[in-house]
């Protein structure tokens, strides 16, 4: 499986539409329009920034 390097988007949400990053932002609401414009089902990922310890 191809490994994709998203490290330059650390701390941001990225929106992948048709295998292409179409938007990225720290606040997902800022790229809501790009999400809706995607004609297929967009895949949304939060790119982690360092270790994450949760709850």
């Amino acid at each position, binding site marked *: 499986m191809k490994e994709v390097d998203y490290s330059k988007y650390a701390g941001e949400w990225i929106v992948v539409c048709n295998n292409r990053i179409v938007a990225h932002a720290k606040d997902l609401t800022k790229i809501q329009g790009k999400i809706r414009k995607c004609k297929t089902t967009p895949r949304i*990922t939060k790119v*982690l920034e360092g270790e994450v310890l949760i*709850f």
Partner: protein
Amino acid sequence: MAIVLRYSNVRRPDNTLRHAPFIPIYTYDASGKRLVFDALVDSGADTTVVPKDLALVLGLNEGNELETRGIGGPVRVRSSKLALTVKGQHEAYSVNVPVLILQDQSNIPLILGRNGFFEEFHITFRQDQEKIVLKKVLT
């Protein structure tokens, strides 16, 4: 039948790659558009946790504000429900899970905790294979 999913690659600031049990979950935003999110399956989390901006995009109804405690200390949250679907090659299961919406700025992904999700699936972490296996609990 079971759903077998590979761990996702997570690149750390030191440029090393770690593999973590993120799985794709399908849901809908506030306008009814179908989306896929990568969610971290966290057996140590009591409840599913949703960052505030994600909750706004999904149009989740928010309940009263509560205070809860995480490893990092107290956090303000509001309760809600999230309808999600997990898909394999030959099967798909939809569940409605209780969630806590973080009210403060956060830098976390969507975290799938135990309540409402682990009751629905027998979950096996195959750490050596970097895979996670979800087998639906038959009711």
